[in-house]
């Protein structure tokens, strides 16, 4: 496990080193030229480490992948089940354990369900309930071969009908799946036999296997769903995973016990318990008083203190979650590129990362999500309030302007402080920001407000992206902005739209990369957001716990956990 993690860290560190080298070469440059210089030099840009081929359209790749029969590694010989509970503590409990709804925490869902394919630490996909897959020559249909002799917890066999039921369930408006929009490209699911599922998509997408690795696409049991109905299924889920759902006491715990008939690696603990503790400070107390085996979402400020405690293991691992501020830019002031660059230069992001986030965050150097295949890094704009003032003055805002920063508090430790820090930095260049700390509803309403009628609104969401196309399309494609209500910044660059359309139809990964690079360069130059940082997963555990890994995707591998 340790090796996996260090490999991962090394892989994330690599591009940064390359970038440093590039920076060393260039002297003080304006942000625009800095971006250009990185783009031109071969050493300056580097695709973030990872399998450059998400999935091959040719026949060879699926077979190659399918040789890895069980994604969690071969069953361990010493796999004796310890008769113990494994207790995980994290933030507020999910509304439903129906994975298709898409609001559940991965910890519980990963224990109970399986997907057709799963993410690995390099953010490419590996077989799970599907053993291999291939795409047709016209790229319109994807054929997945399904694992045989897999049973759901209620004893019913896993077949292609369950795959179809899962997609139907996501697309059913009554499910209220929050990822529904991502799945509407699936026009049909064909089930020629029990162990083959064929997906017809329109438009075509080279990233289809990634969609099947989405947390919403965990395979649900068709017969159980039909019997119970969606709402009850979400309270008493039936899956194929290593643990069987046991009970859910609201706001107290969700528990699952070992699935003796599991098709993959048998878990090493008898029972899995998830307890919701919404407040980060309370989670620290739970950890310190050793009332859980593993505690997620530690506040960065407490970590140095916790690290001194030798009876605890504190782990930080990269995540694919990024924090930035969306600037509504259909109208002035943010429609002016100079203003957007100025708001980025006015904020000392390094100081925020160091002092507010305790160093447990990474500065954003790409409009993509760092750590993804196809993400290219550029020089971030330097902290330079004088230059920011100059840019504002050039843009006709010498006297500054007023904005409102809307966010919802308590979603991650440090959010209140980061907003206040930005407010303070902006005030030093004449931008007067009012903080609007709203509940989820107000926040979502602000996030989706029309950029044309709300020009002075800034919104701070946190987003997790699993692949480059997903991130770029939903954040920067001008049409997606209105249709999907995911990004309403009003960012509109026809050149970016054109390139995104190109990469979406390109099934050759090698040819996709240059397009990705070009489009990201364009976006970085535009600076449509206030780019802050990418998050780090911070969690603590009892020293006797081993075998726990959390992937950048937020997934974890339940089968390998032991408790000493």
């Amino acid at each position: 496990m340790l090796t996996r993690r260090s490999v991962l860290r090394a892989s994330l560190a690599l591009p940064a080193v390359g970038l440093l080298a590039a920076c060393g070469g260039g002297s003080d440059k304006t942000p625009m030229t800095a971006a250009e210089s990185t783009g031109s030099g071969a050493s300056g840009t580097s695709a973030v480490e990872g399998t450059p081929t998400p999935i091959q359209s040719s026949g060879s790749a699926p077979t190659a992948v399918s040789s890895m029969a069980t994604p969690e590694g071969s069953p361990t010989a010493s796999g004796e089940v310890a008769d113990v509970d494994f207790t995980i503590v994290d933030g507020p409990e999910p509304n439903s354990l129906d994975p298709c709804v898409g609001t559940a925490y991965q910890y519980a869902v990963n224990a109970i369900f399986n997907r057709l394919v799963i993410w690995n630490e390099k953010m490419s996909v590996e077989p799970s309930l599907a053993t291999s897959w291939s795409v047709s020559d016209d790229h319109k249909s994807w054929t997945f071969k399904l694992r045989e002799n897999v049973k759901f917890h209620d004893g019913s066999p896993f077949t292609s009908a369950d795959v179809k039921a899962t997609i139907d369930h996501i697309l059913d408006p009554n499910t209220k799946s929050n990822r529904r929009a991502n799945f509407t490209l699936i026009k049909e699911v064909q089930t020629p036999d029990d162990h083959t599922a064929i997906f017809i998509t329109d438009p075509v997408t080279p990233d289809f296997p990634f969609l099947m690795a989405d947390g919403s696409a965990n395979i649900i049991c068709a017969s159980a769903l039909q019997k119970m109905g969606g709402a009850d299924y979400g309270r008493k889920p039936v899956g194929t995973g290593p643990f069987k759902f046991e009970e859910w006491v609201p706001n107290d715990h969700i528990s699952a016990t070992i699935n003796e008939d599991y098709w993959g690696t048998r878990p090493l603990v008898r029972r899995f318990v998830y307890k919701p503790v919404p407040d980060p400070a309370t989670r620290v107390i739970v950890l310190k008083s050793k009332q859980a085996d593993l505690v997620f979402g530690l506040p960065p400020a407490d970590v140095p203190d916790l690290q001194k405690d030798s009876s605890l293991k504190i782990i930080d691992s990269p995540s694919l979650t990024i924090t930035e501020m969306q600037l509504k830019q259909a109208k002035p002031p943010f429609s002016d590129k100079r203003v957007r660059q100025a708001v980025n230069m006015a904020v000392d992001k390094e100081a925020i990362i160091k002092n507010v986030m305790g160093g447990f965050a990474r500065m954003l150097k790409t409009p993509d999500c760092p750590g993804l295949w196809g993400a290219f890094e550029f020089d971030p704009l330097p902290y330079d309030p004088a230059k920011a003032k100059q840019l504002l003055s050039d843009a006709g805002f010498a006297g500054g302007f007023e904005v409102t920063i809307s966010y919802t508090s308590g979603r991650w430790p440090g959010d209140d402080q980061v907003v206040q820090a930005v407010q303070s930095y902006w005030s030093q260049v004449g931008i007067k920001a009012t903080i609007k700390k709203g509940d989820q509803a107000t926040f979502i309403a602000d996030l989706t407000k029309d950029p044309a009628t709300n020009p002075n609104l800034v919104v701070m969401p946190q987003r997790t992206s699993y692949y480059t196309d997903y991130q770029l399309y939903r954040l920067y494609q001008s049409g997606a902005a209105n249709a999907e209500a995911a990004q309403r910044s009003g960012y509109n660059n026809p050149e970016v739209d054109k390139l995104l359309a190109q990469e979406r139809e390109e099934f050759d990964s090698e040819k996709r990369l240059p397009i990705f690079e070009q489009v990201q360069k364009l976006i970085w130059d535009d600076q449509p957001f206030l780019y802050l940082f990418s998050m780090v997963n911070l969690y603590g555990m009892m020293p006797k716990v081993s075998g726990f890994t959390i992937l950048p995707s937020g997934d974890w591998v339940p089968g390998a956990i032991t408790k000493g």
Partner: protein
Amino acid sequence: MRDAGELNRDDVTKQSTAVTGSAAQRTPELAGNRPRRRFFRRFRRSKTAVVGLVIIIVCVLMALLAPLIAPDNPTQISLGESLQSPSLTHLLGTDELGRDTLSRLLWGARLTLVITCGAVLIALVIGAVLGIVAGFRGGWTDTIIMRGIDMLLAMPTFLLAIAIVAALGPGTLNVIIAVGVASVSAFARIAHGAALSVKEEDYVLSARAIGAGDGQIMWRHMLPNCFAPLLVQTTLRLATAILTASGLSFLGLGPQPPTPEWGAMLSAGRTYLTSNPQLTIIPGLAILFIAIAFNLFGDGLRDALDPRLMS
């Protein structure tokens, strides 16, 4: 039915202060026309009440003089100095954004007192007007107003305040409104009781006989009559209001950052409870002290106005 119902209702009135955190067990309706000198003598005799008053005065001074005595700008962040322990430069240390805790405490006194007093003032004005009008008019007006008050009373104060502020959205003004509206019923009942008790008194009847208008009677005769019990209720309510308001702030429904306010400071500091407990302890102590002061002062006032309690 009527007897029992009325008795019960009046008892709720009497006890309503107790629900919310004071031990006022009777309405001191006798006190209104006592000579002033005797009041001050009694009040001074209660050392605790004087202590309460002194703490209140100190807090008010802190709030008023904050711009002069605060060592730092309470909203000026300096990330390099975050989460420092108390030292000579920062007597109470710094918070998570490097702001001076002492300065925030002093400026916080301002907003905290404004919220508390504002809320109680709203409750007092609305409550007194509704109560007096209901008591004076009688009949349908009385029934409608007092039944409405009954309905407000049927909701626990804190729940009602949460519901209102949840609907209006978080913010300083909305907390004032929420806590104010949630506290109206206690004042309305006291004013109502006092108005009823003097309605048939000779001086009211004679005022009416000589042609005094309704407004004049209510203003000149009824309001002074309920002045004393309302004053006591106001003071004791201040203690409750600060606890309710800081509770709302604690839940994130109060004043928004970077505004310094004690409940919000406590709520922000809570994130650092194990590593920097002083950020939680200090604003909590401040709330505790001012609430104690209001309670002491209110109790002293009540005792001074109500001779039956003096031994």
